């Protein structure tokens, strides 16, 4: 590029050949004199020791880590389950600690100022009354929540967790592009960025001076504990649900910090307290780390159309019975037009200008400002005054460089003149560039850094790095950020080695009480157990069908007809080798699992994903008969891989019990259903063998009875044998064991409702003879199992 500064030899070499900095743009790697910044030198010289292939291999290692860890970013689309791989830009942004400290000092001031503005907007509203803030920007603002006016947070503070999007201008100084106060996201992703970076740059000797991220979250965890102790109860993250774009992070942080992960419907407000519905009844919640936009939080007092809120949450906050991170209504501080007034408000409230200024912003509701924006429309981003998104988010800006976007007709001038009060102009800032890997070498790309802040007992604490957004082209206007781009780690490097984390003193520990399982999670685990077992049953049936098809080559065979009618009863059409019912069932299972991923091992989830993924190619290529039978055998192995992973590794928690009961109920029911058809006295010849095969008991039958299959031997083995893990009695015994450890197993010294229905079925089956188990009795048994299933869910809802 013309005017690009020359690269001094010996600094970067081939890696940096063609690293074309743009004139008039600051660069993170090089100073304006073209000298490599000291803080980058160790990293670049380590990287230089590797050739192109080695670098690519290392970067691939990072991607693999993120994939295996299940890090994803959800894209809003018609398919709510579409997940996009986390877009890691592998080269970190590197900043010296001293510079970082200056940034944080400025941001701490800014955080305090925002707190005071929030206090005023929900308190006396003097900023508006005294003319420092236009009334309409607040009155028309959907994030200014009237029910919260006059409500002081129990903790005394509105803001506890913040993020700031900052960028560096051409003169090298930093400025704020946006304040995130509603429900800032990214801190969890930052940790994963760092983990991926650790894989990529392992053995490279770069870690010793880099500040660690983990301390920030544990400080914040302590701060949450303080908030919780003010009111009692448990702490939880309140998520909009599995369909939201940053759900991974909600789940990740919940798991990382040991917080409950709850949705609005998990909560109920009783006598002014927020309670979570658990399998042992409602339990109090003291802190809600809210990742849900406030207006959706309470359909009764806020947005009445919300389907994901909790009626009464506002009342609970009003009574000080719950601490919110951040307070309901804090999102009003994200209003873009506020940036036009913050500099003045800072002088009014603190007597000082902001150390860290924000992006220059003009509200077009003022005549002077309107004229200025019009005059300078060429270098402005013009958009909605009340918007809360960042200047470079999709849809954030509707005019740039004096032109309406998307080729819309009409002149910017007319628009601003007519609609000024609804608009702001923001300077189309130029961002600094930082190196990114384009597959061959390092290239300069624009970037912004996201800084996370948490209020702790020692003041504002900042996560030292972790998260930067990297543009995908060399367009350095802030707007370029909206065309996708990537995320990279940010390293804050100290002058001296950072001491290793001192080994924890052996503090006395306390085991967290088990049994704290939200009812909704129990429900999802139960159905996950059922769906996976149902899928397995159908796979076995399909295998039985296609084996016989291969054997006889005659689809008119009576056994085949019986199997196909039977499968039809489950909505499975044998005409297609891999019927849609199968992927549908696995989707149901994945859906349930997706809602309880915080209680679920990463490996288990990956296995479930693989299972679904493996079906797709099979659906295209599998042929009926032998080919399909083999495909089913393969699928069975994968299914067993998943169930094995889960049941071998999952902690024997309440959740595991619900999942196991779901599995046992489904298996018992499927066996009763199969016996009713294939072990019926009128069944087709060969039906008994099908039953034994479905029960995976061919060898056992052979060993135990040493005779051909008869109705009695089949019923004995598959219904009544308590040592056969496929038998109905085995499932009922299992249900009985599992239920005895559930809450309400005993009520007032007597067996609880659930235990009673299980005991009844268990006793009858234990003393039954094969001749008692008629086809009619089998259908009664199915009804009894359905009764147990209903009772289980009803007792713990």
């Amino acid at each position, binding site marked *: 590029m013309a005017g690009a500064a020359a690269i001094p030899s010996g600094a970067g070499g081939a890696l940096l050949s063609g690293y074309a900095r743009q004139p008039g743009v600051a660069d993170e790697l090089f100073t304006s004199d073209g000298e490599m910044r000291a803080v980058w030198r160790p990293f670049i010289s380590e990287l230089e020791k590797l050739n192109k292939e080695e670098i690519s291999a290392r970067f691939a290692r990072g991607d693999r880590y993120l994939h295996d860890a299940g890090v994803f970013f959800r894209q809003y689309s018609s398919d709510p389950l579409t997940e996009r791989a986390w877009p890691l830009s592998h080269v970190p942004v590197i900043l010296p600690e001293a510079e970082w400290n200056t940034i944080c000092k400025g941001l701490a001031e800014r955080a305090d100022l925002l707190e005071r503005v929030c206090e005023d907007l929900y308190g006396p*509203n003097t900023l*508006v*009354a005294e*003319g420092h803030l*236009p*009334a*309409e920007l*607040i*009155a*028309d603002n959907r994030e200014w929540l*009237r*029910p919260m*006016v006059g409500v002081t947070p129990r903790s005394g503070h509105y803001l506890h967790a913040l993020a700031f999007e900052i960028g560096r201008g051409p003169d090298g100084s930093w400025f704020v592009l946006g304040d995130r106060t509603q429900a800032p996201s990214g801190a969890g992703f930052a940790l994963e960025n760092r983990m991926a970076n650790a894989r990529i740059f392992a053995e490279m000797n770069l870690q010793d001076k880099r500040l660690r991220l983990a301390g920030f979250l544990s400080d914040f965890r302590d701060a949450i504990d303080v908030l919780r102790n003010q009111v009692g109860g448990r702490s939880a993250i309140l998520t909009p649900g599995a369909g939201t774009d940053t759900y991974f992070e909600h789940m990740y942080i919940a798991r990382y910090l040991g917080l409950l992960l709850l949705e609005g419907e998990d909560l*109920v*407000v*009783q*006598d*002014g307290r927020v309670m979570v519905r658990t399998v042992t009844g409602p339990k109090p919640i003291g802190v809600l780390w809210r990742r849900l936009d406030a207006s959706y939080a309470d*359909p*009764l*007092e806020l*947005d*009445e159309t919300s389907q994901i809120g909790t*009626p*009464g949450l506002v*009342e609970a906050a009003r009574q000080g019975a719950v601490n919110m991170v951040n307070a309901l209504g804090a999102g009003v501080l994200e209003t873009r037009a506020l940036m036009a007034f913050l500099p003045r408000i800072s002088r009014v409230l603190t007597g000082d200008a902001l150390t860290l200024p924000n992006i220059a912003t003009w509200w077009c509701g003022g005549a002077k400002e309107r004229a200025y924006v019009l005059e300078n429309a060429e270098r402005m981003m013009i958009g909605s005054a009340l918007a809360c998104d960042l200047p470079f988010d999709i849809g954030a800006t509707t005019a740039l460089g004096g032109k309406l976007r998307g080729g819309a007709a009409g002149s910017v001038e007319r628009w601003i003149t007519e609609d000024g009060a609804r608009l702001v102009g923001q300077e189309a800032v130029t961002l600094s560039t930082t190196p990114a890997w384009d597959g061959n070498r390092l290239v300069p790309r624009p970037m912004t850094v996201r800084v996370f802040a948490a209020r702790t007992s020692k003041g504002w604490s900042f996560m030292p790095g972790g998260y930067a957004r990297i543009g995908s082209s060399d367009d350095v206007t802030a707007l370029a950020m909206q065309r996708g781009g990537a995320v990279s780690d940010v390293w804050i490097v100290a002058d001296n080695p950072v001491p290793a984390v001192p080994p924890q003193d052996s503090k006395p520990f306390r085991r967290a009480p088990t049994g704290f399982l939200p009812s909704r999670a129990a429900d999802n685990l139960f159905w996950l157990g059922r769906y996976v077992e149902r899928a397995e049953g159908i796979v076995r049936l399909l295998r039985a069908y296609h084996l016989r098809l291969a054997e006889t080559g005659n689809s008119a065979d009576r056994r085949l007809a019986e199997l196909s009618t039977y499968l039809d009863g489950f909505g499975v059409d044998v005409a297609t080798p891999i019927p849609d019912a199968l992927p549908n069932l696995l989707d149901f299972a994945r859906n349930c699992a997706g809602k309880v991923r915080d209680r679920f091992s990463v490996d288990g989830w990956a296995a479930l994903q693989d299972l679904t993924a493996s079906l797709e190619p099979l659906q295209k290529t599998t042929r009926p008969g032998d080919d399909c039978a083999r495909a089913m055998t393969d699928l069975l192995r994968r299914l067993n891989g998943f169930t094995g992973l889960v049941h071998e590794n999952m902690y024997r928690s309440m959740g595991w019990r619900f999942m196991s009961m779901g599995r046992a109920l489904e298996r018992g029911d499927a066996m009763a259903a199969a016996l009713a058809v294939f072990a019926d006295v009128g069944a087709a010849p060969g039906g008994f063998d099908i039953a034994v095969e479905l029960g995976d008991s061919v060898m056992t039958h052979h060993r135990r009875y040493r005779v051909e299959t008869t109705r009695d031997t089949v019923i004995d083995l598959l219904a009544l044998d308590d040592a056969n893990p496929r038998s109905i009695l085995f499932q009922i015994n299992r249900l009985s064991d599992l239920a005895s450890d559930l809450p309400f197993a005993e009520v007032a010294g007597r067996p609880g409702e659930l235990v009673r229905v299980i005991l009844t079925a268990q006793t009858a089956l234990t003393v039954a003879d094969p001749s008692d188990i008629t086809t009619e009795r089998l259908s009664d048994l199915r009804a009894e199992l359905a009764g147990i299933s209903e009772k289980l869910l009803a007792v713990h809802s």
Partner: protein
Amino acid sequence: MRYRIRLTIEYDYQQPSDHARNLLHLLPSDIAGVQTITSRLLTIDPMPPERSERLDFFGNAMTSIAFHEPISQLGFKLEVEAQRFAPSDDVLDLSPLLENMPQEIAAAHHLGPLSPQHFVGNSPRVGAMPETTDFARAHIQPGMTALEVVQAIGRALFREMRFDATATEVDTPPADAFAARHGVCQDFSHIMIACLRGLGIPAGYVSGFLRTHPPEGQPRLEGADAMHAWVRAWCGSELGWVEFDPTNDMVAGLDHVVIAVGRDYGDVSPVKGVLRTSGGQESRQAVDMVPLD
């Protein structure tokens, strides 16, 4: 004029509703120069284990109730004695010309409950729409004061809209009701609010009671009165808030008793409730407003 007002509302749920929680705007309050409430009593059946009263943002009395056990029906009985004062006959029109309203509004830069600022922009259920703004423009003359505009718009809607008790539902968007030119008092009021906001006059929603006059020579029918709604508009800092009833083409007066004011129906709906129930619900309502003078 003194009134005794009785209101009953009853709900039947087809499926028992679990953890019902409701927000009620049923209790009228004193308003200086407009009305005095000498007694008010709200009984709820079954008796809710949680019940509290407070003022909402706009100063209305708001009742919160909650049930912890499933309920299959819910009834409210309100008894009120109120005195409504006559508006003075010769109101001097102190309102500014319509074209001067922007400056008037800008000068009222505070965010207290009476501030016009809350009533200019869109609220959840009502915002200015091109069709209502065009309609409004077509029914005013140059040089009108804000008060004259309010009355002209109210009258125009009264003439062009047909009252139809069955044509709309509580959630019918104002745009639909306006397109069909029909609806009930809620629709009339929402449409008038949209018209006024479109012209730059701050406007809000009033819920309350309206005394109905039986036809000449016939007795007053018990329970025939209805909960009612009308509009309040801000006509500059001198004149302040003015109430107009577009359903009846009249300035709200001796026949009107106010329960609550807000930006639109959503702020003052009599019984707002979120029910965790899958079945439907049925409701009945009766109002009896007896003049005591």
